[in-house]
């Protein structure tokens, strides 16, 4: 099964604080704030879950994997995620 935003909205609605529409809007805004923060280059640290960071990648030479032709990859930013120790342990408990 795949968890989606719709499931998170359901879980929030089940708390009986907000209507379905409000729940959906709040979850949308929550992810928008996280995206906005990362867009500004700031890390987002959720204790117990993990950390989202933006890393700068320098320009580098690469190859087109299909043709093998050398190409120049432009400098870019990537978003990385580091899982918290607590979550990592819980994922591995039932291994």
């Amino acid at each position, binding site marked *: *099964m*795949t*968890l*989606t*935003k719709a*499931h*998170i909205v359901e*879980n*929030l609605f089940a*708390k009986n*604080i*907000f209507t379905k529409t409000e729940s959906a*809007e*709040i*979850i949308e*805004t*929550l*992810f928008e*704030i*996280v*995206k906005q*923060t*990362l*867009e500004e*280059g*700031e*890390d*987002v*640290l*959720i*204790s*117990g*879950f*993990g950390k*989202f960071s*933006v890393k700068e990648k320098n320009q580098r030479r690469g190859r087109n994997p299909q043709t093998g032709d050398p190409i120049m990859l432009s400098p*870019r*930013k*990537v*978003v*990385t*995620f580091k*899982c918290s120790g607590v*979550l*990592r342990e*819980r*994922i*591995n*408990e*039932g*291994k």
Partner: protein
Amino acid sequence: MTKSQLIEALAKAEGITLKAAETAVNVTFQSMEDALIRNDRLEIRGFGSFKVKKYDGYKGRNPKTGELIEVDSKKLPFFKVGKELKERVNGDSPEGEEE
């Protein structure tokens, strides 16, 4: 930004109490955690997706001492950034207005 700063920002943006915003943030990350613990896939449109990857155990060496060690198999969540977020951190706004 920390979790408490996210709670404050959400309360302000939505005009809701800090307690309500805290519930929303906790429900969100708890739902995501539970999914990963169940080894379910998780996909947030525009943000990214997570999937638990299994890594086999192997025999390795402590790079400092050269000592032979057994590395256990493990599972780790792997995050793949979504298209929208990937474009936004690189300043390629789909509307193409801001610079």
